[in-house]
């Protein structure tokens, strides 16, 4: 999948891609952490027919609606193990740190199995993997471990 990343000076970044049906779909990440969902227009692919501002909560809901089924379906059921996608918010202390810095496995028992960035999945990241704001971290662990991991990623 070819995701085009375009810097928007003074505003943020635009990440979009072409769907098979010929539409451009993407997300504008504002500098202050707001998201905007964009869909291109039929008659003019340069312009947008919709640009929908989303709150952090709405973004998380939308991304879990779209993303969760594929990831969770790979895991066995009834094992007590769950998968969760945790965002690295712009204000997170780990927005400019490595996976090793979080010491997530030592502290919570949960493991990071992948990082989703700009629509691309980076599987099995090593301790040297550097996070960036806007990353989605896919964590596997127990319910308690995941809750603790979410708190660590958000607040350090």
């Amino acid at each position, binding site marked *: 999948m070819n995701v085009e990343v*375009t*810097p928007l000076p*003074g*505003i943020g970044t635009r990440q979009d891609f072409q769907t098979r049906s010929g539409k451009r779909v*993407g997300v504008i990440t504002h500098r202050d952490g707001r998201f*905007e969902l964009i869909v291109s227009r039929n008659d003019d*692919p340069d*312009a947008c027919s919709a640009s929908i501002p989303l709150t952090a909560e709405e973004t998380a809901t939308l991304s879990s609606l779209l993303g969760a089924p594929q990831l969770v379906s790979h895991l066995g059921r009834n094992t007590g193990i769950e998968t969760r996608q945790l965002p690295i918010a712009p204000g997170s202390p780990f927005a400019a740190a490595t996976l090793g810095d979080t010491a997530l496995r030592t502290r919570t028992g949960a493991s990071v199995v992948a990082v989703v960035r700009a629509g691309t999945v980076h599987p099995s990241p090593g301790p040297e993997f550097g996070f960036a704001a806007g990353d989605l971290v896919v964590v596997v662990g127990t319910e308690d471990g995941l809750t603790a991991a979410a708190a660590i990623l958000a607040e350090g």
Partner: protein
Amino acid sequence: MHDTAVSLVELGAVFFGLGILGRFAWRIGVSPIPLYLIGGLAFGQGGLIPLQGIGDFTELAGEIGVVLLLLLLGLEYSAQELVTGLRRSWLAGLVDLALNATPGALVAVLLGWGPIGALAMAGVTYISSSGIVAKVLGDLGRLGNRETPVILAILVFEDLAMAVYLPILTAVLAGVTLLGGLSAVGVSLLAITVVLVIALKFGRYVSAVVDSPDPEVFLLRVLGAALLVAGLASQLQVSAAVGAFLLGIAISGSTAENATKLLEPLRDLFAALFFVVFGLNTDPKSIPPVLGAAIGLALVTTLTKVATGWFAASRVGVARMGRLRAGAALVARGEFSIVIAGLAVASGAVDGELAALATAYVLLMAVIGPVAARVVEPLTRLAQRKLSPR
């Protein structure tokens, strides 16, 4: 009433009036800048009611407004964005400069204002209002459009051009010789390079100097640093505005974001006063004689900005409609044109009519810009339908 009471009442009336004007402006979808200018014209010399006793305060507040306008402009773009923007848009940026500075310079020469007037008017017609443009793009939901990065890249280039232009203008206005002018160029280019390098490599340290978790302390430090740098720059003849602009570039990352959030309301307050002061100092009676020139300039520079946008957008493969949108979005002129005219007039080195022309020009362009951006699509579609009936 004693003096302080009169001053407070006058100042309160000015702010309250500006609040009403601002609300009205956004309601009809235009920038409030032209209305602030009109407000100033109405009260100033030769206007309806002359204000007394708050002159000193408003003058200084206007100066602070300029410093804050430029500081926030610098905060808006990270050094990284400036460098990539410059690399990507230099050709379009040069076309922009050539097409839009020339009309202003020519008119100044035709009106007999000499080379200094020409230099000032070139700046007035060249620089788009990044504030109006960004607001209009956001309001019209065009941030996701393909031509939008092109528009923003041109704004970035213009901002860097300002950082070179303002010190030159300041030096020339101060009446230095050719050699002095050249050294001002050298000093400003050197300063910009040094600041960019510092911002790219050591931006954290600059940010650390002003940063504080406490908003009150943070506000005082940022504002203090900005005024200190602006004052020093002004003393070194590099223009206060440029000092603040460079400080803004050097502050980076989350510090810059927080500073922007904190300073935006202050900027709006002081910048509004700056526009009023500019209007106050312009005699409304001096506008009618230059109105023809202003209208001519407005028409020509609307077309040249559209051409600039068309050219820049076509280089990245945007279709016709997008090229027109890019052009129309760039039309608005505003705060920085007034900053330039303000510098020129305050120095006394240019004809007083320049203020009148700049005022009339910005009054027109700050209204034409947002309207052009809005109507370009429906108008083009209408024209297409007329041309190809079926």
